């Protein structure tokens, strides 16, 4: 039995300090979800290492993996799964968020450098007014005048101008979303996407979203929990997050719609 538990958290050797303090003979079953979720985080850290493979930071990313695993093993051996979960929520998840985004943004820039044509197209999307400076200036001026007029109009009406939201999200690094892809008119296949999905699965998902929404040069960031406006059931939904044209968006797969979001930042 204890061999099974040890194989679960990847520690074949018993630590030399095992006899020191009151250890439970068996890990209770309710510890199991904590261990599984912790293992997924470890997997995600390992995956991050492969992303940083050709960089001088690899050694430290690997250190993060090993040191995190040491804490995992320590707490699991003592049946302190809840503490382990807390540790991951307060540390590992933020770490994964940050260093995944850094890499994704870097890769995006790298792609742009390799494909100058694409880069030109991206710039055009980002700044439609930049192309012809004079024209752009006129457009902007015109838009401002129209906005001003509409604003004066709305001031007199009852309706107020809505404020757009840019909510902060936190990535969920261990759960996967299932989506249905129509291969041929008769054949539909289910696919999975999550932070720990391999490159092939991620590419398939990017292709799926690109085709569905007609947007290109996007990258998959991870999944997150959100509440959609106007969805009748008031329940949070796990949805994919993509990076496109310099910003993050949540994809509502059912409605084929994007919602802009930003990454949660720990401010202390």
């Amino acid at each position, binding site marked *: 039995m204890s061999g099974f538990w040890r194989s679960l958290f990847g520690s074949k050797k018993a630590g030399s300090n095992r006899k020191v303090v009151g250890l439970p003979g068996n890990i209770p079953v309710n510890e199991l979800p904590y261990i599984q979720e912790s293992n997924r985080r470890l997997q995600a850290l390992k995956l991050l290492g492969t992303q940083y493979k050709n*960089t001088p930071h690899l050694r430290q990313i690997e250190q*993060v993996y090993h040191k995190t695993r040491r*804490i995992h093993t320590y707490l699991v051996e003592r049946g302190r799964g809840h503490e382990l979960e807390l540790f991951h929520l307060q*540390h590992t998840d933020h770490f994964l968020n940050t260093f995944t985004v850094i890499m994704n943004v870097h890769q995006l820039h790298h792609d742009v450098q390799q494909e100058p044509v694409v880069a030109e197209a991206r710039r055009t999307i980002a700044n439609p007014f930049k192309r012809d400076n004079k024209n752009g200036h006129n457009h902007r001026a015109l838009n401002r005048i129209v906005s001003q007029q509409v604003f004066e109009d709305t001031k007199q009406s009852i309706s107020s101008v809505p404020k757009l939201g840019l909510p902060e999200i936190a990535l969920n690094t261990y759960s996967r979303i299932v989506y249905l892809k129509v291969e041929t008119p008769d054949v539909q296949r289910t696919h999975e996407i999550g932070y720990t999905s391999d490159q092939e699965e991620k590419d398939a998902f990017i292709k799926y979203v690109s085709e569905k929404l007609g947007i290109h040069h996007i990258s998959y960031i991870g999944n997150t929990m959100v509440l959609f406006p106007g969805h009748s059931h008031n329940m949070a939904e796990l949805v994919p997050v993509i990076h496109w044209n310099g910003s993050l968006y949540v994809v509502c797969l059912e409605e084929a719609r994007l919602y802009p979001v930003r990454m949660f930042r720990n401010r202390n």
Partner: protein
Amino acid sequence: MPDDKKHHQNNILTQEQEAILDLYVKRLDEIYNELKAAEKVQVEIETQHLKKILTK
């Protein structure tokens, strides 16, 4: 940051991000050491407790 230019091309992280990575590795050591330290205190408490029972 002008110093970033010195960095190797494969060097993805800015100096600030590198510093954060350094700090994070250190923080993981601290957390582990704190866990071990808490254990030592517990051992000490248990030992004193047993000693008290035996020397009554």
